[in-house]
């Protein structure tokens, strides 16, 4: 451990930090109220935008072979080919692509991961409380997403669920309907949630792990000899 102690110290502020999410929460707290947050995050191009096309990117000079893409991380798609806990999800469900964009290039990976997008309807009795909670980004495993033009008229907002990952064959994903892409800031916020959900730690866990490594108390099991 001696040689690795310095590396551990260097990583301690990076690997499990929830600072990115705190910054998002701080930004949101500075906005006056829920209505103001809706205005900011639901504005055209603010959080979501039309699907980014490879043709548009090429026209801007991103035309190297490694620039080509069909789908990007954070794209909102609809497909009936994805599975959740072994069950195929039907009913035109929406998802957001979890993999990094470079892993969504055709024929690079066999499988991809998707997160579920749940709709909240206008007649939901907790609608205002849900808007408030999600637009303050208080729940780590749920991220706000505006209602999209293709959603039914009764949909008030969408929620990206980080609790539970769906799987899909990459070939099937490329046939999914692309509904929207995330804006640059939306993509960064999505990555912050992803990081915090996958790797965060309370200070107590850090203290516990340090204590265990400094004062090892574990002993080997003394198993009784097997009877002859």
């Amino acid at each position, binding site marked *: 451990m001696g040689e690795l102690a310095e590396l551990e110290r260097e990583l301690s502020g990076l690997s499990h930090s929830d600072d990115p999410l705190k910054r998002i929460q701080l930004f949101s707290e500075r906005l006056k109220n829920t209505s103001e947050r809706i205005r900011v995050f639901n504005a055209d191009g603010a959080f979501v*935008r039309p699907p980014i096309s490879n043709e548009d990117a090429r026209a801007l000079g991103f035309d190297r072979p490694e620039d080509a893409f069909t789908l990007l991380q954070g794209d909102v798609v609809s497909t009936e*080919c994805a599975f959740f806990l072994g069950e195929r*999800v039907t009913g035109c469900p929406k998802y957001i692509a979890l993999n990094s964009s470079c892993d969504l290039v055709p024929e690079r990976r066999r499988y991809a991961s998707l997160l579920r997008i749940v709709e909240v309807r206008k007649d939901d009795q*907790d609608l205002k*409380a*849900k808007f408030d909670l999600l637009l303050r980004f208080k729940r780590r495993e749920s991220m706000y997403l505006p209602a999209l033009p293709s959603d039914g008229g009764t949909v008030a907002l969408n929620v990206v*669920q980080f609790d539970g990952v769906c799987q899909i*064959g990459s070939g*099937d994903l490329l046939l999914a309907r692309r509904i*929207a892409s995330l804006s640059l800031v939306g993509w960064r916020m999505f990555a912050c949630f992803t990081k915090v959900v996958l790797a965060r730690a309370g200070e107590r866990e850090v203290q516990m792990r340090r204590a265990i490594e400094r004062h090892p108390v574990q002993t080997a099991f003394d198993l009784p000899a097997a009877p002859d």
Partner: protein
Amino acid sequence: MVATLSGRTAAFRLLRDDDFQRLCGVASEVHRLKSGVAFLIQAARVVARHQDKESIEMLVRSASMLSESKVLPERDGHGGFELTAEERADSPDAGDIDVDNIPRPSIG
């Protein structure tokens, strides 16, 4: 299906995207059925070699298992999003939302 475009060398079917996604979903079930079919073929091979009562019974049972699994496990949609009691209690009055006029971003 919305329309058929007939050309000299080929015909094209136009589908609504929802219908296309539904068909793709059903087609993606093929790999789940494959393992069942492989098991059935194996059972048939055993019967071809050993035509005893147990082998025939296994073939019949594996065939009926496959035929009964016409409806592979599916779930309709993703379910809902619910608040915990603490989250509901923690929510200040957000009564300034005009629910019927929530803006939606334009996505082309």
